[in-house]
């Protein structure tokens, strides 16, 4: 079973100490800017002038670059190739693949889109790497988000390891009864009933018992909730957030004015 339930990497850094809402606002602002600022190199600028330096100052450059190269780049690369080949614009052919042509224009177009998507995913990767999910939720709850809502969000994030644990137990049990889950697709499709049945029943029981368990620990108590974590916030961060909002508004304005 995995001990690692979130992307979060514990480090002592400026980025980690920022208020979760500030980091969330920053991630959103970077994405909006990358998408709407009407300059071709904006996404690349955001990536190399903002996101990468932040990952270095956040002491998570190693984890960030691992995710960027191993997870984001292949997906975005695929998107780039597809768009370069299929986008029916431009005349100047730079590459031929059977009947598909990549033109200077389609390559430029695909590159910008790929760069935007890259920024989008890496901005949120940076956010997730440097922010503990519990801290984010505690902070949002403190700002008035209903606690039931944050419970749903957090417990949904945790569903994967839970379901994994349950599913592993069920698969182990059924394989031990001679169920073939390792060979042909057809056999595996036939194995679905014995695997899904206990999972569904187990989940029904679990939902009921989970409700009792959290209720027994005062979940619906009328008292104002507190948080184990002290979540820092400051005037400076508040100003920073509003500046980011202003930047977003400005970029959108510039985009509209430009077009």
């Amino acid at each position: 079973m995995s001990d690692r339930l979130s992307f979060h990497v514990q480090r002592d850094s400026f980025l980690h100490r920022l208020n979760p809402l500030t980091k969330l606002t920053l991630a959103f602002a970077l994405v909006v800017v990358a998408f709407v600022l009407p300059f071709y190199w904006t996404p690349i600028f955001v990536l190399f002038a903002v996101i990468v330096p932040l990952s270095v100052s956040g002491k998570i450059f190693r984890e960030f670059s691992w995710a960027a190269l191993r997870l984001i780049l292949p997906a975005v690369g695929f998107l780039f190739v597809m768009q370069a080949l299929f986008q029916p614009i431009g005349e100047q052919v730079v590459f031929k693949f059977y009947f598909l042509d990549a033109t200077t224009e389609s390559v430029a177009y695909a590159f910008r889109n790929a760069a935007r998507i890259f920024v989008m995913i890496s901005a949120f990767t940076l956010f997730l790497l440097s922010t503990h999910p519990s801290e984010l939720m505690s902070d949002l709850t403190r700002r008035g988000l209903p606690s039931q809502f944050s419970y749903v969000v957090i417990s949904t994030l945790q569903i994967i390891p839970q379901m994994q644990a349950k599913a592993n137990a069920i698969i182990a049990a059924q394989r031990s009864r001679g169920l073939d889950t390792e060979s042909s697709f057809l056999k595996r499709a036939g194995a679905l009933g014995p695997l899904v049945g206990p999972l569904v029943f187990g989940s029904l029981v679990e939902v009921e018992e989970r409700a009792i368990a959290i209720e027994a620990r005062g979940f619906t108590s009328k008292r104002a909730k507190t948080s184990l974590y002290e979540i820092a916030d400051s005037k400076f961060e508040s100003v920073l957030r509003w500046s980011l909002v202003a930047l977003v508004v400005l970029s959108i304005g510039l985009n509209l004015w430009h077009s």
Partner: protein
Amino acid sequence: MNIEIKSLHFAYPDGTEALKGISLTIASGEQIAIVGQNGAGKTTLARHLNGLLKPSGGTVFVGDWETTQHPVAKLAARVGYVFQNPDEQLFSRDVLTEVSFGPRNLGYAKEKVDALAQRALALTELSEKTEVNPYDLSPTWRKMVALASIIAMDTPIVVFDEPTTGQDAANVARIARVVAELKREGKTVIAITHDIDFCAENFERVVALSRGQILLDGATRDVLGQEAVLAQTYVEPPQLTRLGKRLGLKETVVNQEELLQALKK
């Protein structure tokens, strides 16, 4: 069919070393209980017997099969494994179908599947309940259905993971009867258990694990008599063994009959 474990090492993906060099030979027809504290490696060891886990080092042979060479679904013909929580395996609409699932997977003819299922149901006292949906049964009886569904596979080796956990006295007695019957049939029975009194009364050999290694291995009487060593793995000798010691009996007693006989002398 013998089980031969040679310097078995196992580490989980996160690096936790769960087994650190286990060597163990289990002869055909033996009744073995594996005891030890939470986290000692009991379940990890048991899961190597039917190939659910494959060694990081060393070998596990079940008969002439090395477990790494055969898929779990094939090993299931040799080693039956009763899991602790029945709700992780029951899925059929009625008890008979559930119990027939294992032998059907093993590819037996219909007549043989039926015969095996009926025998297993009789052994677990479920013959009256074949038509019932397993989920309409109490947890106690669901446990028995899980037992029956493995016994029906008629494997030469049966592994029980914590068979008596959360069971009342009547069901513990029922499970003990199943173990005794399997023994009579010449099957190898291996149980992981915290229930040391159950262990003393139903098993002839005990292996005590501690932190991934074998602490003690031998005849039940010899192992359960060693109070000081067992304490290292958070196990206390059975009630009657402790009583025998307190009374200053020369022989270690492990059950009621032995105690009363020893007192007569």
